[in-house]
Structure formats: C-alpha cells, structure tokens
C-alpha cells in the first residue's frame, strides 16, 4: 500500500491539472473566505466560514480529485495492472486515496489553524477535529461511490458536480439560516449534520452530547456510500 501511495504522490505533483484542482482552487477559495471574514461573519458566523472551508477542500481537494484519479487509473488499465500483483483490493484503494486524503487533511489543518489565529479559536477544537474527520470520511465514501459511475476523467467533471455543489450548498444554507427551521431535513442532507457539528464546535453554545449525536447522520452517509461503492465500483473499463 505504501509503495502505491508513494508513486501516487509523485503523480499528483507531476500532473498540473490535478495539482490545480486539488490544491490551488481549494486554497484560493479558502483564502478568499478568510480574507473577507468580516463580511461572512456578519452574514453568518465564524463557524460558517470554517464549515465552508471544510467542504470546499472536501469537495474539490478530496472528493473530485479521488473520483478523477480512480477514473483515470481505471481508464488506462492501471487498476487492472495493480490487481495483477499480490496486493489486495483494499490495499490498492487505500494506496490510491491515501496521498490525496492526507494532503486534504494537511490543507484543512493549515487553513483552519490560520483562521483560528486571525479570527479567534474555536470554542471546542476537538469537536472541530471530529467534524473534519467525519466530513473527510463521508467525502471519501461518496468519492468511491461516484467513481463507480464515472467512466473517465472527463466524465468526472460532470459526475462530481451534484455532490460537490450539493454539499457546499447545504453547508451555506445551514450556515446562514441555522437549524431552527427544517431541522430534520437539514441534518439528513449530505453534509448537513457535519456542518452543524462544525458550527457548534466553532461557535459553541450547544451541549456536547447534542453535538456528538450529529455524527450519526454523517456516518450513515458513509455507510450508504460504501454500500453503493461495493456494488458499483469497477476495476476495469466497460467493454
């Protein structure tokens, strides 16, 4: 698995398109939110900015990159090549997604720490870490599921849009309007509970037990995505 991860990392830095999609776009968007934090804090809250940053990196840096990578590796039969070795399927997948996942976590950590330093630290940093980890797990699951229905890297530009825009839209909606109304709907939407968790972690004012309960819908999305991926994921292109 480490051997695959090592070469995957090398490929990320050699492919400009992946580099721009994975790093430049999420970092630029996050920098914009941090730069205009006064405006966004006025509209919503500091927790909202943290949630938007989390889902921007999650959607573009992690989710889209993984779907594109897996589709590309399948299309050029690299997945089949890896399966002609002694490596297990789980090991292959882990090796392929590990570098992007670690880089997304490093990006998130860096951006949120900077945000905490310039705009005030979160009320409960550990809860914020939990929100990030739960979001990363959900986006990973959704990426594996989406890769199952994505035929090529070009096709990924279309298939990743609903989830990418969806989770950022849900995070914006909940971040700005809160959960006083349509609470159940907002929590059940993908990313809804994780957004609320980040809002609670950053803004405070909610009992820890009420916040931890929000992990359940997020992990339900992870389970659903993994179930879908286990049925739909393909290792070779359709013939």
């Amino acid at each position: 698995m480490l051997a695959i991860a090592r070469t995957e990392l090398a490929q990320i830095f050699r492919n400009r398109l992946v580099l721009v999609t994975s790093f430049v776009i999420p970092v630029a968007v996050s920098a914009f939110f941090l730069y205009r934090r006064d405006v966004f804090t006025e509209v919503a809250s500091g927790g909202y900015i943290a949630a938007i940053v989390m889902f921007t990196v999650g959607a573009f840096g992690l989710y889209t990159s993984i779907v594109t990578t897996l589709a590309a590796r399948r299309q050029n039969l690299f997945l089949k090549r890896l399966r002609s070795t002694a490596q297990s399927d789980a090991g292959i997948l882990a090796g392929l997604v590990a570098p992007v996942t670690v880089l997304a976590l490093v990006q998130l950590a860096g951006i949120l720490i900077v945000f905490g330093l310039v705009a005030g630290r979160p009320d409960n940093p550990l809860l914020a870490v939990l929100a990030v980890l739960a979001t990363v797990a959900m986006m990973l699951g959704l990426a594996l599921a989406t890769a199952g229905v994505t035929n090529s890297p070009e096709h990924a530009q279309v298939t990743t849009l609903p989830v990418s825009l969806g989770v950022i839209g849900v995070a914006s909606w909940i971040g700005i309007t809160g959960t006083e109304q349509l609470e159940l709907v907002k929590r059940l939407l993908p990313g809804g509970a994780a957004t609320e968790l980040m809002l609670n972690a950053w803004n405070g004012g909610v009992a820890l037990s009420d916040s931890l309960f929000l992990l359940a819908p997020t992990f339900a999305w992870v389970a659903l995505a993994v179930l879908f991926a286990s049925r739909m994921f393909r290792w070779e292109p359709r013939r």
Partner: protein
Amino acid sequence: MSTTPVIEVERLNLKYGDFHAVKDLSFEVRPGELYALLGTNGAGKTSTLETVEGHRVATSGTIRVFGRDPRDREAVRPRMGIMLQESGFSPDLTVRETVGLIGTLTRRTDSADRVIDVVDLTRKATTLVGQLSGGEKRRLDFATAIYGTPELIFLDEPTTGLDIQSRDHLWTAVDRMRENGTTVVLTTHYLEEAQQRADRVGLMHQGVFHHEGTVAELTRTLPAVIKFALETPAPAPPLPAVVEPDGSLRVETFELQKDLRLLLTWAEDHALDLRDLSAGPTRLDDVFRAIES
C-alpha cells in the same frame, strides 16, 4: 521437478449475459512447459487466460494455479508474472518507478535496473512511460512480468508491436527462464512463434478446444501440400492432384517425403520440369485456416 500441474482447469464456463464465451473447457499446464493458448478471433482465449490469471470470475468450473484459487492473490501472485495484452501503465511514472512499483507489489525480490536491462530499456529508465513508444511499453510490460524470475509467466500477445530485434531479445529472455524451469502460458497471433516454441497447444474456436496437443499432433490432422505446374502436354502425375484456378497442380499428402520422392522420380523419368515446385509440412496456419473455413 514436480509433475503436479501448475495450472488445472476443469469444465470452465464463462458467460456474458446470454453469450456463452467459454464452454466446458478443461486443460492443464505442466511444470516447465510452454503452453500456447491459440484461437480464432472471439474464440474465448483472452477470457480463459484472464480467468486463469484471476482477473475474472468463472461462471462455473474449477481453476487451480499452484493448487490454489488464482484469485487468492497473496498466495499465487508472488509465484506468477503477468504480461497483459494492453499495457495499463501510468503515463506520469518513469520506467524505473513503474518496474519498482509493480515488482514490489508482486512480493518478489529483484532489482528494477536488472530487469530494465534485460528488456534493453536502460537508456529509458528515467523516461516517463507516457513518452515511450508502443514497442517500448510492451518491453516494459515484459520487464514487470519477469521481475523476480517467477515460476510461471503469462504472456498475452507479447511480441505485438515489437521489431524483430526486440522479439529475438524477448524470446532469448524467455528461453533463459525456461532453462531454469519457468512455466510459460502464451497467447499470440504470430503462429510461427507458437509453432517454434510451444510444447503443447490448445487451439480454441467458438469457446471450445478444437484441438489440443503438441504441434506435431495438431499439424498431423491435416495433409501437407505439394504444388507444381507442368508444361502441356504432359502425362498424368503418379499422385492424385487437383488443378488449381491458375493451372497449377496441388497434391495433398500425409506422407510428404515419400510422395515428394515419388513425384521427383516420376518427373526425372519423364524428363519433365516441375515448375514453381513448393512442398512443406502442415503448419499451424493451415490448421487455423481449416478451422476458420
């Protein structure tokens, strides 16, 4: 050397929807032999090969490689090398990185530079795979298959796209491995390669074996052909001959040497010149053409 078959296939069936690609196929590959799996287009040989390699799941039947299910990668793959029909390499990795990665994942021990040298790609070791020619990619594929000198190698169309020098190079490497006991399973469209090198041949047509045996056994199923033309008028030849559209005569025989001698003696006795005389043993190409027709 052990006589237990390296590969055992029993009543293999493969279906894609309603299409029955492989029907009740049974064969075995013995240690150290070169087994050529040949077939007409769409015969099911790639499906069979990929199932034996563990890339596909059989609809029914039993497959054993080294006595194990070929999908048990951890147990089987360290002992086998696979040269795929299509390359399947990442264009953003160098030749050395690619060989190193695949080699490491096979869990065999070797040096990437050694196998790169065997396939004559040393000058390209730091070149990205995306910049290699088709022939160079085939050689890279071969390098990953022979990394760590496995006990069994699958060669799927190994010389397609290779120039003559590269082909000779590849076969020299295969011959060297066979001297050390490596078993080889080959598919190829270059029938002369199979004819020259295969210990046994499985000849597939429409999902079943049309013939299986040594090259000699296969070619023995068809008569050899003697072709010649005569100045007219000439006496009737001593063997039954068919007149071809171009006016030449065609004799089919299962006793080539005896009948050829008879024909030459007859021509000498009658002071005849056998124009455009050609004679040769039956080749795998002839068996193929007979199946396809």
